[in-house]
């Protein structure tokens, strides 16, 4: 399947227009990667400043209003501009056609349109920063209705971003149904694709609800319609119902693709077939389905009825089952494997460790009595960051390193990358583990000020941001300065289809559409030896 004669996708055209108007799924994936990378860095700087402010009680470097603006900017930018489109749009675009044996996604122009919509939504979001919101990323009513900031403009930007998300989801679903190579049956589909499929279902089914909710918010603010304001006959808890009906499945839009990445990396660096392929694949779908049934666990202290609290609490425990199935299967894949601690593998192992902490602390919050005490404290902040950073971002970093040779056609310095990993891992835990303790001691989230007895834990958490930032800068430095020489087509001896071609791939991926005859995870077997 050599592509010697064909130009690789990076060389096929130069200049702005060759990228901005491309319909090549790989280039669109790379553009998403750059865009979300920029927003990630801006949002991370905001969080760095927020943590710096907490070095001392009272004002340290900024006013209370600036603090409110910065944590809103951090949360909303991380969620809507980085982590929701993050892995799915960037790596999903780049990898899905390569993994299923297709020349592109099924609707290439729609794919480009989705990216343009993403940019448009992001632009509206950024324009709104002229009068930045201070509501937190959840935009709860009634404050979001009353606030003088550009809440509606930001939410309109998110509304546009939602369309981008929906169109990408539709594209991926149809691509996986219609463009799989001969022999690429559903039970041979790489697990990253299964995860992307489940993610796409969520994107298509859940995103319209947040779009409608934001429209209702606009209707209430501009036209005085009574949806959420009790004075007009509305119900503020209704906003939370609608918001979390989207935003809880959105948590799985964020984490499922990262789980797919882990399922790809672990077998390669354990030289073992993935344990429980079907269980992992179906667990992705189960997570997607159950995630629609648990949104009320964000609202236990909102005034929601006791009956519905109990129902949501019970169902919340159910979503832990398919998630745990995945974790156990990854661990069983490692068992007696020939483990190679590459950088991507280190991030993947860290994912399992950190995500498990994030998941288990989620069960604390799913328990009604415990949640009354822990709700809106730093315990919640720590829990969601263990899931979102320890899970999704570590998975994202694993992917950045694992598919780096395939994307760029170069190798990177593994030693420096591993040092960066160590710094990021330590920094992350120093930031967020003290926050579990702060939360159980009663430190509320989003507060500008705090009691003096919390200072040492706050300071420890802030020091963690310095360690983590050093690691992140080293990681960027390492990845921006690849080693000389061309990367081999398959440096990690992967059996997955995207590694069967040169690095970087040619514009049309495959000279001829391949025929698949074997399962994708046959590591350590006779078939691998023969190949």
């Amino acid at each position, binding site marked *: 399947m050599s592509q010697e004669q064909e130009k690789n996708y990076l060389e096929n055209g130069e200049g702005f227009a060759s990228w901005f108007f491309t319909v090549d799924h790989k280039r669109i994936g790379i553009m998403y990667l750059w865009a979300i990378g920029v927003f990630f860095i801006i949002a991370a700087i905001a969080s760095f400043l927020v943590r710096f402010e907490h070095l001392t009680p009272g004002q340290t470097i900024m006013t209370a209003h600036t603090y409110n603006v910065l944590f809103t900017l951090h949360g909303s930018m991380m969620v809507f501009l980085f982590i929701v489109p993050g892995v799915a749009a960037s790596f999903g675009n780049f990898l899905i056609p390569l993994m299923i044996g297709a020349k592109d996604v099924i609707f290439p122009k729609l794919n480009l349109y989705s990216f343009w919509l993403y940019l448009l939504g992001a632009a509206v979001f950024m324009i709104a920063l002229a009068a930045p919101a201070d509501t937190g990323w959840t935009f709860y009513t009634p404050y979001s209705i009353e606030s003088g900031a550009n809440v509606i403009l930001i939410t309109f930007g998110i509304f546009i971003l939602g369309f981008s998300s929906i169109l990408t989801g539709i594209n991926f679903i149809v691509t996986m149904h219609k463009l799989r190579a001969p022999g690429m049956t559903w039970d041979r589909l790489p697990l990253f694709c299964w995860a992307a499929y489940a993610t796409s279902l969520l994107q298509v*089914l859940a995103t319209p609800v947040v779009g409608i909710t934001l429209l209702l918010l606009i209707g209430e603010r501009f036209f005085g319609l009574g949806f959420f304001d009790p004075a007009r006959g509305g119900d503020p808890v209704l906003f939370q119902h609608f918001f979390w009906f989207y935003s809880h499945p959105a948590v799985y839009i964020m984490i499922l693709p990262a789980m797919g990445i882990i399922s790809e990396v672990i077998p390669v660096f354990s030289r073992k077939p993935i344990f429980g392929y079907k269980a992992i694949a179906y667990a992705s779908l189960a997570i997607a389905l159950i995630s629609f049934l648990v949104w009320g666990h964000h609202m236990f202290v909102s005034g929601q009825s006791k*009956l519905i609290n109990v129902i949501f609490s019970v169902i919340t425990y159910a979503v832990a089952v398919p998630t745990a199935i995945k974790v156990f299967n990854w661990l069983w894949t490692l068992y007696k494997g020939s483990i190679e601690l590459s950088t991507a593998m280190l991030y993947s192992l860290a994912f399992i460790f950190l995500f498990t902490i994030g998941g288990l602390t989620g069960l604390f919050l799913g328990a009604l009595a415990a949640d009354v005490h822990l709700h809106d404290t730093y315990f919640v902040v720590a829990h969601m960051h263990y899931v979102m950073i320890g899970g999704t971002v570590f998975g994202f970093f694993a992917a950045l390193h694992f598919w780096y040779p395939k994307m760029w056609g170069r190798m990177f310095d593994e030693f420096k990358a591993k040092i960066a990993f160590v710094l990021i891992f330590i920094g992350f835990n120093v930031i967020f583990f003290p926050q579990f303790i702060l939360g159980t001691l009663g430190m509320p989230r989003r507060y500008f000020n705090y009691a003096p007895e919390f200072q040492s834990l706050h300071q420890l958490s802030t020091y963690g941001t310095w360690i983590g930032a050093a690691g992140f800068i080293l990681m960027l430095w390492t990845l921006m300065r690849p080693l000389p020489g061309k990367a081999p087509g398959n440096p990690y001896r992967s059996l997955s289809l995207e590694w069967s071609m040169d690095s970087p791939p040619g514009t049309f991926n495959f000279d001829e559409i391949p025929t698949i005859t074997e399962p994708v995870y046959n590591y350590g077997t006779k078939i691998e030896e023969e190949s």
Partner: protein
Amino acid sequence: MDNHGSYKSLINIWILLMFLTVVTVGAAQFDFGAWNVPIALIIASVKAGVVALHFMHLKHEDGLTWVFASYPLFLLFLLIAFTVTDMFSRVVN
């Protein structure tokens, strides 16, 4: 013209939709009390169903497409059912 309905049937569907629009406007002229919203929603649902079946070709699609098309209705049911359960089981002091 493909096999997804003739011009004649499409025009008939359009006339039906126009008729249902007249019914919507007509129904809005009367006060049915608590039935105002259900009646409006029933008429709108019939219109949406006709559009989905004929203009969006659902009538001609296979089982898998029906599963995809009907699952959002199940989710809508869940959203309404849980929210309404909350609203009617709250204890207000």
